[in-house]
């Protein structure tokens, strides 16, 4: 009887999980292996793939200049955009956690940009960033800036422009931080006050450690997001000017669906996979030093 029951429990579990088991096999596991195989092939999606060994990888590293350019563009977004994004969303959350009047209104205002359709916000920001009559440069020249930047038309300013735009949608992270901030027990702050801690010390020694798991979560999510940064660049600049916004995911898409070099694009995808894993691993490893889990010694 018990073993019979165990067996049936096994089947019920599999049955309920079936959608994911099939989905994982067809849309995740098989594609991962297939793209690994394609990455060693010359493949145009019409004729069958044809094995070429390491050639795609070698060519990417040695002959595709845009490959390195797109990788460095993406790293730029992660190095400058991600910390700014994290700081903005945390800053907004801390401001909103001060129990002032009208929180709901502010929260809505800060959050809305992050759910605005990307196509719509991209078109809007193309207009806002217009060098001659865009909102930002109008404001800047009002403030006395004689030669405001050309933003999306200037290779030096195009990436900062996109980072600025991504800060506008920092509200998604903010809501997650806010929930974590509201979970910090009031008693801890009171105890810190009794010990004579000022506002800054309380933030540093009470708030930050307690919300550090959520910071880790946002770092990982942000990292993955910037590694796959695509739509805004596709719509707003299509990689220009001078490839300054040709990001990794955009170059990969163009190699695959413009040039029909599915093999090279698959190799790029696998490199992205490994780089993402490596970056996540580094973050997780170092997180042992700065993430605090309640209930752990």
């Amino acid at each position: 009887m018990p073993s019979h029951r165990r067996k049936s429990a096994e089947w019920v579990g599999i049955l309920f999980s079936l959608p994911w088991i099939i989905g994982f096999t067809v849309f995740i596991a098989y594609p991962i292996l297939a793209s690994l195989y394609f990455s060693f092939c010359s493949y145009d999606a019409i004729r069958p793939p044809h094995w070429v060994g390491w050639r795609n990888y070698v060519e990417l590293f040695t002959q595709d200049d845009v490959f390195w350019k797109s990788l460095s563009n993406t790293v730029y977004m992660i190095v400058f955009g991600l910390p700014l994004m994290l700081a903005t969303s945390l800053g907004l959350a801390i401001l909103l956690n001060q129990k002032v009047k009208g929180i709901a209104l502010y929260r809505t205002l800060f959050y809305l940009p992050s759910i605005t359709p990307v196509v719509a916000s991209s078109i809007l920001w193309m207009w806002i960033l217009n060098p001659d009559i865009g909102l930002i440069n109008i404001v800047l020249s009002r403030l006395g800036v004689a030669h405001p930047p050309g933003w999306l038309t200037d290779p030096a300013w195009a990436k900062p422009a996109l980072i600025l735009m991504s800060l506008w949608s920092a509200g998604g992270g903010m809501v997650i931080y806010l929930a974590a901030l509201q979970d910090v027990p009031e008693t801890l702050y009171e105890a810190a006050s009794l010990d004579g801690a000022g506002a800054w010390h309380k933030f540093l020694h009470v708030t930050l450690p307690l919300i550090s798991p959520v910071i880790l979560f946002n770092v990982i999510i942000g990292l993955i997001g910037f590694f796959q940064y695509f739509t805004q660049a596709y719509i707003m600049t299509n990689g220009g000017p001078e490839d300054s916004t040709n990001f990794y995911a955009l170059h990969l898409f163009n190699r695959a669906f413009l040039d029909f070099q599915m093999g090279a694009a698959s190799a790029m995808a696998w490199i992205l996979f490994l780089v993402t894993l490596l970056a996540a691993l580094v973050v997780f490893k170092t997180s042992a030093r700065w993430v605090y889990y309640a209930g752990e010694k």
Partner: protein
Amino acid sequence: MKRKHTTELLTHIPLIALGVCFALPFFWLISTSLKPDAQIFRIPPVWIPHPMRWSNYPRAMRYIPFALYTWNTLRICLFCVIGTTLSCSLVAYSLARLKWRWRNWIFYSLLATMLLPGQVTMIPTFIIFKWLGWIGTPLPLIIPSFFGNAFSIFLLRQFFMTLPQELSDAARMDGCSDWGIYWRILMPLSKPALATVGLFTFIGSWNDFLGPLLYLNDERTYTLSLGLQMFVGQHGAEWAMLMAASTVMTLPIVILFFFTQKTFIQGIAMTGMKG
């Protein structure tokens, strides 16, 4: 007392300043969408258009088959919401409520999937759909949702874990099957979590660009995202119409958010909790 007022003021000043920064793009969007052509390029800028040209809206919606694209988008959103809530809740039930041997493996596969860049699966998935003859139809955007996604399964699992185990035990005593426990007990109790997953799915599909870009090559099946992007290519300089079209695409999301704020905020908080 006085001290309290100063700190409150010190919070309000940056909040108002930031609020203006965040609101200004929306204001500019709507303001531009209502401007007559002559006022768009005027310096100093016209903040509030006079007269307001409402006809920009019907004009923009005549340039592209707006009603058709809205219908195409809505149809995809609807099927995705049904598919995702149904499939993900089933899987979440097996992870949160059943003890079986492969459960942990399934769970690990979910976590690993969350770190997987979509680009890795993009090309072979495209080939699969091409082989099935589904390119140019909305099927590649709909069918995968019936096989679950890591994020939603995770969220529902977390929610199912919070419901008392006694409920299932009592039902089982009364001879209720697992299907009965899932469908008649857990699902009705999980409306908030299901609503959250449904909302995120709806907004995800509504806003999706890469999916339609890959799979929809027939203009009659375009979604709003794709239609709007084409509009940029064809009418690049007609900013008033572009802004009107963008406003119309954003409006349903804003309205949806206003009616479901609580579900939204709770749902997002729940996703952060796993950290």
